[in-house]
């Protein structure tokens, strides 16, 4: 191994650290974008299933209105939860569970 002279400037730390940091930040951003899109799509799907589940049966327009009120109240909350609870994709799993419940509600009512 060649010894570095004592008066030779040390390599700039940014030269090696910055690209790594930038790559990490880019990866984080990419993961966040994907997670946000998946959370939005899942939340919207759950909202649609909720309306279908609550409106199923013979309730008429009242149940449709009730389903829409609950779904539109829950939709932004589900997006925030799906995106915010990121550890182990807990939020997305929760949304999936909600979707399963809503689908079950529809099957049960039908």
């Amino acid at each position, binding site marked *: 191994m060649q010894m570095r002279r004592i008066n030779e400037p040390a390599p700039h730390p940014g030269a090696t650290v910055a690209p790594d940091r930038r790559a990490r*930040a880019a990866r*984080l951003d990419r993961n*966040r974008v994907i997670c*946000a899109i998946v959370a939005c799509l899942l939340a919207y799907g759950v*909202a*649609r299933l*909720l*309306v*279908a589940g609550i*409106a*199923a049966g013979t309730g008429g*327009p*009242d149940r*449709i*209105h*009730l*389903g*829409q*009120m609950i*779904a*539109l*109240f829950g*939709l*932004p*909350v589900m*997006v*925030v939860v799906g*995106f*915010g609870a*990121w550890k182990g994709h807990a939020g997305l799993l929760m949304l999936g569970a909600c979707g399963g419940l809503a689908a079950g509600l529809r099957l049960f009512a039908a």
Partner: protein
Amino acid sequence: MRETLRTRLGWLHGWLGYMAGLVLTCIFATGSVAAFNMEITRWMQPEVQLATLVPPSARALDAAARVVAAEQARGVSAFIALPSARSSTLDVLHYNGHEFIGARLDPATGAVIPARVTAGGGLFYNFHHTLFLGPQMGTVIVNIAGIALLVAIISGVVIHIHALLPDIILLRLTAARLRAWLDAHLLAGVLFLPFMAMMAYTGVLVKADMIVPAPPRPARSVLVPAPPPALMPDMTALPLASMLARARASLPGQEPGFILFAPQRVSIFAGDASSAFLTRGHADFSLPGGSPLPVDTTATPMARTMQFMHGVHYARFAPPSLRWLYFLSGLCGTAVMASGLVLFVMKRRRHAGHRGAHRLADGLNVAVIAGLPAAMLAFLEGNRLVPASLAGREDWESAIFFAAWGLCTLHALFQALRGQAQWAWRAQLGLVGLLGTGLPVLDLLCCPGALRAQPGLHMAVDGMGAGAAIVALYARHRLGQRGA
């Protein structure tokens, strides 16, 4: 960087808030102005100088029916709008794809008032709920923006939940610029959080059938061919005055607002100003005899709740004081969004200020925050400058609005992409100041009679223009003091 709930939701709040905020600022600004859509239409028709509310006479109703018949002969589906506290004329209106336009009649005599045709406050109302992009695409964009607003509100509350109360009393205008903008964003955001959340939620509920439609139900019977379209009976022989009296009796506590015509029936609907519940209760009469038809007007609690949600969003029941509150709250909501847009760009300036995307964002901010008010003022001034007898002048007015905004956007983007966004800010804020101060002068010069007949209305609209000018010139002054 360590990933926490706050950093993650901060990222969501920033990016989603910025992308939706560009549209939401326009929606909130035009929605706030649309709280006075009928008053603006009255301001834009200075020939109509009826100040007092007069119930429509039988003669006037017959004259209106003749106008409806003439419109129907031209293939235009028109209806009658009865005089109300906000509009004292008897109107025969039709939808031209963007606004309700038509003849204005004197409710006492039935004489047609030779008022200029105008896009009126309907332009702001239409822009608010469709962005002028048509009922399909525009409404979808507005709906997505509405949901995004709710997401931004919830994520914003989670980010600042530990400091919601201190945020109400902190405004450090003399602090560093970023801190001052953040304080203003938080202060207005916390104070008007209930209003913004209410408007966003009721707004998406208005279009709930489009966002989360109910699943289609299976058809019960085989399809039968639709009957051929029936011909409209002779409208000029209808006893509208007696129908109106009977409708008034069958709509207790509600004042009739509209008369709609169908081949087999005439429907008299309650006006939207009757109560906070947008009931659309109606009394139907058969044609051509005019005998009352049975109508079930009972509403279930859920239907009443939905009617209330609609009523609270449209605010047509609101007396003038509450309407002003809606207007001012809407402006403060607009300020929250506009300050959020500025903050988003400002926070990233040090690291990304040299990038084209950052400059583009800066230019779009100028176009939305300064360009839109300039276009709105140009639209109002265009009403005074476009000849009153010009055919299709409502389209000219709309064209002035969009042309002014388009030019402002081009100017802002050109300057921002050159790295000179502060020039665009200064120029366009100056333009708002010029147009705003010019509005009362132009109104006084072009329509002195209308100003004398309805001083309150004209002072309010002109005053709003002057107010916008003062705010814009103050902002321009501050911008000059503190540099880019």
